[in-house]
């Protein structure tokens, strides 16, 4: 039965002497691999060099501050509701007198935790936020860690530092100790 007109009759030709000698084919193969020997290598030596992220990469979260350095987050909980992975938990608190320089709204997040093992980095929290407080950074990733509880990022690691970002360019977030040290220097 003929299904198409593209059927091709294959002829099994006897091999020529050069083909049977096998050596020309070997030299051809050797020249191909030798060309690859001098080619640019595809390897990215990871901790020293990182591949460039795309402009709209959704990486590690950051809780932004406003122009006066106050935390934008008002702990409304919309991000937690929007989160399909239920990775966000927060505890709201009332701003006390004298804390106006720290928090923009009268209500603020006493604790704000994102579990990076649950998070699927969809960016829905970013879309849900009415105060433009939470963003997924395009240049930082949640790095691998040894312990499970190290993946629960609290405010210490999420809130944007007051001074210009001194964190590593590799996209690795600070450990709590390093963050404490940095905050102590700022305060």
């Amino acid at each position, binding site marked *: 039965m003929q299904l198409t007109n593209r059927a091709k009759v294959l002829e099994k030709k006897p091999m020529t002497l050069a083909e049977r000698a096998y*050596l020309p084919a070997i030299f051809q193969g*050797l020249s191909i*691999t*030798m060309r*690859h*020997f001098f*080619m640019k*290598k595809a390897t990215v030596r990871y901790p020293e060099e990182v591949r460039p992220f795309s402009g709209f990469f959704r990486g590690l979260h950051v809780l932004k501050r406003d122009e006066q350095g106050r935390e934008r987050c008002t702990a409304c909980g919309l991000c937690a509701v929007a989160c399909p992975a239920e990775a966000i938990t927060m505890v709201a608190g009332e701003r006390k007198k004298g804390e106006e320089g720290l928090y923009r709204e009268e209500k603020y997040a006493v604790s704000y935790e994102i579990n990076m093992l649950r998070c699927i980095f969809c960016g829905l929290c970013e879309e849900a936020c009415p105060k433009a407080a939470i963003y997924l950074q395009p240049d930082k990733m949640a790095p691998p860690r040894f312990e499970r509880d190290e993946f629960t990022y609290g405010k210490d690691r999420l809130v944007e530092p007051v001074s210009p970002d001194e964190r590593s360019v590799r996209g690795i977030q600070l450990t709590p100790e390093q963050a404490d040290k940095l905050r102590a220097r700022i305060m």
Partner: protein
Amino acid sequence: MLELPALGWQSIVIFVVFALSLLIATYCTYAERVIAAFLQDRVGPDRAGPFGLLQPLADAVKMFTKEEFFPGGANKALFVVGPCLAMITALMSSAVIPFGNTMSFGNNAFFLQGIEVNIGMLWIFGVVSLGVYGVMIGGWASNNKFSLLGAVRAASQNISYELAMGMSLIAVLMISGTLSLREITLQQSVAGEWQMWNIVKQPIGFIIFLVCAFAETNRTPFDLPECETELVGGYHTEYSSMKLGLYLFSEYVNIFVVSAVMSVLYFGGFNFPFQYELRDWFVNSQGWELDSAQNLITILGTVGLFLKIFAFIFFFMWVRWTLPRFRYDQLMRLGWTILIPLAVFNIVLTGGLILFGVI
């Protein structure tokens, strides 16, 4: 020429050659991984030390600290003897290879060679063919079907290819008229007259020898004894820890030895072009003594020989990461119906050329 301190000198040379072959084999593991990586557009191990140069050390530590496993029903004594035999035979054959010409100190002259015997070629062949016993014994003692199959393959492959290898050598011996590796080397460059290396006189023989060398060292495309796709790990399926390390190591020592043999037989050994002109230049224009000039040439020749050896080792690895493995019947057909007739033809051809005085 050889005086009493020759024995002391010989033991030093043997010790150095022993250490060198181990060192080279160690760094062959590193070179293999780096070359494989480069041929595949990767960079290979680069974490341990600068450029990953301490990687063999890390591998050795890994090998030594792994669990030593004896399979149930294995013949324990032979299970241990197998890798030892493979390693011993691999190391033994480098004793007769002339790594350099004569060194003279005052009245004493030494060969840069372990033992100078007039049957050097035979010694290497004898020892190399013993090497298959290591594989054979190890494979049998493992009490494992795959190991045994690998061992049987290794044995039949080595026997088949030794025939063609020996016959390609006969052509060289017809030209040289001696089995001594030093004599063969010296014949490839005689002072005062222009002598070609044997590769020019024996191109067919060299190709046969090269192919057989790949088969003898169980390297791709002839690595059927350890064919992972069919036989798990071949003869060393059941081996772990440093016993496996010895098998893998002996393969690299074998490559080193066979590269040295090829350099000596076909590529002039420690000779390099214009060596006598260079020596005369040192003596006549620079006012050196003949002895010291000769010693310098000897050292340069040794360096040259090692460069040739490294080039061959590189070629072995280059081929390994280029060609796929032969099928078993293809391997046997190539050995028996192509290489052996070709080798016989080469002998006849060489005989004819000698008879008519061409070479």
